[in-house]
């Protein structure tokens, strides 16, 4: 997952993540290996600050 630099670490993404795989730190987001790019967090992000990485 690409986290844009305007992310405000509000935690919306972690709240909707069905796999509970996002750690919201004070100034950082950490996605665990469990992330399968389902994109639910991308749609929920109020700031459009997440983007699925092309593989």
């Amino acid at each position, binding site marked *: 997952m690409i986290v844009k630099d305007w992310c405000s670490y509000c935690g*919306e993404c972690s709240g909707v993540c069905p796999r509970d795989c996002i750690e919201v730190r004070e100034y950082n987001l950490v996605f665990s290996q469990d992330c399968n790019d389902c994109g639910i967090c991308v749609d929920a*992000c109020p700031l459009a600050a997440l983007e699925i990485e092309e593989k």
Partner: protein
Amino acid sequence: MVEVIRTDVLVVGSGPAGSTAARFAAQGGVDVIMIDKKSEIGSPKRCAEGVSKEGLSHVGVELDPRWITKEITGVRMVSPDGTDVWLTEEEIELPEAGYILERKVFDKHMAMGAARAGAQIMIKTLAKGLRREADGSFTVICEKMGETFEINAKILIGADGPEGHIGKWAGLKSRVKPNRMESGIQYEMCNVTFEREGVIEFYVGSCAPGGYVWIFPKGDDIANVGLAVIADKADKPAIEYLDDFVKTCPYTKNAQAVELNVGGDPVMGLVKEMYGDNILLCGDAASQVNPLTGGGIISGMSGGMYAGQVAAEAIKAGDLSKKFLKEYEKRVKDDMGHDMEKYGKAADYLLELSDDELNDIAHAFQDVEFTKISTTQIVKALVKISPKAALKLRKFF
């Protein structure tokens, strides 16, 4: 060897719910530690900051002018075609109202209340994981500025917000479905204009699919202007809805933002499991939020109050079992269970309405006389004027 700190109660998260839990647990005479990942409790805010007067007194908070920005004396609802429904002193004799807080100050004061009651606070401390020990207690792995240590608690209280992991790590059914998690966004602005002083304003309809727009006054020309949407009903990111609204609304078109706030708001009603052996969840982590208004300060603090009380009682009784802690759920449900259910039904109905239907309701509301400002009164009036609403909501209101 990793350092292990032992305590009776560990509260994760020091928002209003966590601080209230910590305060009541400490007042109950047990050892309490409260951790928060942030360097400043209460900041950045993720909230429109409205509370009722009655609610503050319910959770034992004395008013302090340092965290009150504006007294609320009324409500204005605006339908998609611009029809106003006013519920203010001009329409109603004795408004039951509230305040718009300064959460950055309020949250810190609530944490200080916990500290003064005896709780120990650790800021900039992140919960990284947890494990259950053989005796049933929980050990939370913590990280503070590069240092890892552990806190072992007889009772763990998860007040870690909508993004929280504590309940999920502990195996509780506390997940909020993505279509019940609102995406909230807000500007704090100046140069906002108001038709009437001290009125909280709600704009409903396609300006915020699945939610609404709010303008909450904070004194002078300052207001929180924000909205919440449900991602699967929305066709663009929340911020685009907000920017469109601010540009087109006559009251905000000259307003200037001095702050941007974002965050999730769980609006599904109480989570399925808010307690288990040695664990309690409160606040947004337990979805203790009014599903219609999205308001969760007082309900979260009430949850925190019961969590703190029951945690202290359990430790004193030496019984940390799920069976003993069920008392927590009982107090929460007695307090807010019915409201959660009825406002949930109201939300399910109202969020499905088209702009035209909302306009019709607003027109019919022009002839309704309200006697009291409350969400219940508004929905009751709606049930009276709309047969469709009556069909769905009559038995709840």
